[in-house]
């Protein structure tokens, strides 16, 4: 086990591929992988805009079809056992900072004008338990989904990261 952790640590510098880099990003060194029945759920959002649920469907599809392999000479093959025995992430739960407010669609947010819509989000992918995405708007949730999609690599039908827990706070750096 000790050898395994050292092994993982050796590969860490190659392990994140989020573009552009989130404003605040902290990572750990625990490998986890998506559960085979991984799902994305909404928490206390009374009326989910159609384009937000479409975005979630796209994210689910992207996670399973992207198949990006880690940028190492063996594409992660030597990590196979570590990944296989890693804890699994059962779900990503999507929630709103202000659940009582009427959630506008992504589309309405996108065309609202310069600097009108808050695109910030926070994303937590823990070592154990489910992941949490939180934002104030549907557009913020879309940005968080885009980041979530980019946390993962693929090996032998496993979708994994080596760097849990991952904690991200993100928003545009410059304001109009």
């Amino acid at each position, binding site marked *: 086990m000790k050898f395994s952790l050292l092994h993982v640590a050796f590969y860490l510098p190659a392990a994140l591929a989020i573009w*552009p880099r*989130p404003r605040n990003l902290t990572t750990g060194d625990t490998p986890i992988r998506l559960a085979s029945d991984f799902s994305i759920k909404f928490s206390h959002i009374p009326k989910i805009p159609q384009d937000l649920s*479409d975005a979630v469907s796209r994210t689910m599809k992207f996670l399973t079809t992207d198949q990006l392999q880690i940028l190492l000479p063996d594409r992660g093959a030597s990590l196979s056992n570590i990944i296989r025995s890693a804890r699994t992430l059962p779900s990503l739960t999507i929630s709103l900072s202000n659940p009582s407010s009427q959630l506008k669609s992504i589309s309405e*947010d996108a065309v*609202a004008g310069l*600097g009108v819509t808050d695109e910030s989000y926070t994303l937590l992918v823990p070592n154990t338990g489910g992941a949490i995405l939180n934002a104030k708007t549907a557009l913020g949730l*879309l940005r968080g989904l885009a980041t979530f*999609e980019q946390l993962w690599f693929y090996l032998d039908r496993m979708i994994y990261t080596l760097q849990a827990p991952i904690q991200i706070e993100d928003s545009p*750096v410059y304001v109009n």
Partner: protein
Amino acid sequence: MANPFRHSNLCSSNAPSFPVSNIKRTLDAMSWVKINHFHWHVVDSQSFALVIPGFEELAQEGAYSAEQVYTPMDVEDIVSYAASVCLSSTFPSNLSLILSQRGIDVMVEIDTPGHSSAIFRSHPEHIACPEATPWAQFAGGTFQSSKRMSLVLLHTPPNIEPPAGQLRLASSSTTNFTANMIQAVSSMFPSKLFNTGGDEININCYVEDKSTQEDLGESCLV
């Protein structure tokens, strides 16, 4: 989003008409990296590729070919892809329903008064120095934007492009036509933003254009 700019913008100058599928592929890539505006330079000097309701002749005569155009349905498709919810087929009603699913606001640019030569094909009355030659003396570019720039550019090739031709900015008939056309285009897009260009005018084109000089004379501007 780490995206350093709240208004991060990809500008596509595609009057030559990229297929809609290429634009959609680009919109996908934009959303992955959290770019939130698509600046669509949809017409240019060489080709007028946008089919505008009420102004169909512009693309009919001014596009490279009948196939190399963006119809209102294409625009609807692109905006709602950047976007999403299906629109009613009764274009252009209910445009406020066009939704930007990928979080991308599509800002269209109709470049004026320069970069408008292709309008000459259907409306010769609105264009000064259409396709005038030698084009290096009449076409638009950045070569004469300032004295200092000219000095710099003495040593570099001028950044100008044929064909020549600019909207007759002193003609009231042309300004009315342009305003109406821009209004028609703006109703095709749900964005609050619109770009009317404004760069790379060739002064000599207007100096040599008799009609423009007469209009300027009437308005006592010369």
